[in-house]
């Protein structure tokens, strides 16, 4: 039995606002085994972004437990969380979030800085990763000189540069056209199949979710569906 990459039990998240406590996630239990490709869907306000932020150790749960790679995330210091984000998780954002003034190889090498790796080694690894996403020859370009699809590839290369166990993607194709979206999803598929990287992504498009094996559907902060992706897509959005 392989151990779970993600194991969540009875997780709740409340936001405290001026108007009072707003519950966002209710009692979610969820586990992801190594090598799984999970898509998370749900309407706006269903709490999927909050869910993703908690998975990504950017936010902490109000109650319940979260084990990432068998480590209890709920009891980690800020520095320990940063370390987890750096070494265990690769994060891909909807808006790419590249540093505009750094060139592509510096962008990809950025996570390695916080591991104390030497500059030459950083750049070598960054170049390898850029080649892997098909942008090797653009390593000196700046983010504003390349297309959105290419920027997202750079962001994926950056997420992969530390060889994470888990790749989290928050609407990675949200800012891209259909054609480019397919290319990005093909890349995710390849990373999952060939390199065995565990992937959890958020999307609101069924054909993007169709690339995954498993679908988790959230509504009003609860898991309303958790199962194979094919059935859910066939059954339509209401399932």
């Amino acid at each position, binding site marked *: 039995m392989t151990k779970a990459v993600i194991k969540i039990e009875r997780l709740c998240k409340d936001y405290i606002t001026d108007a009072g406590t707003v519950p966002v996630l209710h009692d979610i239990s969820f586990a992801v085994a190594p090598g799984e490709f999970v898509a998370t869907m749900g309407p706006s306000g269903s709490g999927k972004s909050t869910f993703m932020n908690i998975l990504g150790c*950017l936010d902490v749960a109000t109650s319940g437990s979260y084990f990432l790679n068998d480590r209890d995330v709920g009891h980690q210091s800020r520095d320990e969380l940063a370390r987890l*984000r*750096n070494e265990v998780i690769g994060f891909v954002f909807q808006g790419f*979030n590249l540093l505009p003034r750094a060139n592509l190889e510096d962008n990809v090498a950025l996570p390695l*800085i*916080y591991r*104390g790796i030497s*500059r030459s080694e*950083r750049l070598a690894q960054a170049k390898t990763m850029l080649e892997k996403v098909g942008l090797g020859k653009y390593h000196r370009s700046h983010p504003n000189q390349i297309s959105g699809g290419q920027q997202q590839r750079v962001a994926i290369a950056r997420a992969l540069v530390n060889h994470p166990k888990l790749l989290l993607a928050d609407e990675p194709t949200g800012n891209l056209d259909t054609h480019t979206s397919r290319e990005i999803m093909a890349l995710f598929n390849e990373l999952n199949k060939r390199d065995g990287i565990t992937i959890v992504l958020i999307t609101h498009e069924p054909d993007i979710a169709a690339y995954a094996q498993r679908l988790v559907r959230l509504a009003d902060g609860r898991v309303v569906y958790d199962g194979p992706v094919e059935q859910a897509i066939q059954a339509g959005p209401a399932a």
Partner: protein
Amino acid sequence: MMLAMLSEAWMAMWANRLRTILTMLGMVIGVAAVILMLAVGQGAQQQVQDSIASMGSNLFIILSGSTTSGGMRMGGGASPTLTVEDAQAMEELPLVAAVAPSSPGTAQLVYGPNNWSTQVIGTTPSYLAVRDWRLSSGMPFTESDIRAATRVALLGQTVAQNLFGDDNPVNKTIRIKNSPYLVLGVLAPKGQSLDGRDQDDTVLVPVTTAQRKLFGSQFAGTVRFIMAQAESADSMPQVEKSINELLRQRHRIREGMDNDFTVRNLTAMANTAADTTKIMSLMLGAIASISLLVGGIGIMNIMLVSVTERTREIGIRMAIGARGKDILLQFLLEAIIISVIGCFIGVLLGVGGAYAVGGMTGMTVVVTISSIVTAFIVAAGVGIFFGWYPARKASMMRPIEALRFQ
């Protein structure tokens, strides 16, 4: 790690060149002002100290005549009551290093086609010791010249130049009031006194010669003033007291009567002048420090703007694994780089400016290593101090909030 952070900081500063340079400018001006002001202040102090040193150290001047005499008050030097014998008696007092009776007057000097009017002081060889005055050439006159009242003279630099030009005056004969005097030596240059007189515009002759042959006092053997030097600064109060007692005794002044002489402590007066310039130089430094402080606040201001502007970048960095202290270090390094480079340029400008001011105005400027080091340390400290708060603010951000920032 540190190196990587340095290059990250450098990159951010390079991306905002103009802003970085303007921020730096605050620092540059602050440091340059501090160094320049310290240089001018210390220069003024040095100038005063040099004048004091040129006057001689631990000095008393004893003036004849009384300032308060019965019902009528006379100015100092009004009646000639001091004598060479008084001076000789003072020399016997404990803690007195040297005593020089002085009889000054004005006379016309002639050498060849040149003539010059100057102050001629009749005195003894110990005058040179009291005033800490060396000869630049020749020999001083001796006790035997005093006894024999020989016509010999020591020329000050200004006098030598006016009478002889570039020639060597030693062993030449000049005429003072139409009598021939042999020039024994030339005094070393002393420059201006504290009150701005040219100390080199003077001629020294034996006191006896001055009294008997040159000025011819109607009170034989009297001198205008006596200069006395105490052995040390600590012994000055005691020496002053014993001089007073000795002279009262020698002049037969009864209990309750006013002195017919005045003892003045020249060194104390000089020290007051020194203290004044010290306060002035401290004030200049303090004013300049304010500009350094303003420069520091400028750094803080820009760093705060920069942190707000780069909130998203901070969020990205945190999302990919930057710890709070990594962010802190990055922003702190930016502040430190700005202040250190600014300080470096400021030091160059300040030192250059100080010498330029010195060259253009003829003021004495003193640039000390300690003032440079102090300015450097203070500036780096200002950078850390004012960079700390914005950097800390950046490091305390919550990653999701920073990422959401538009």
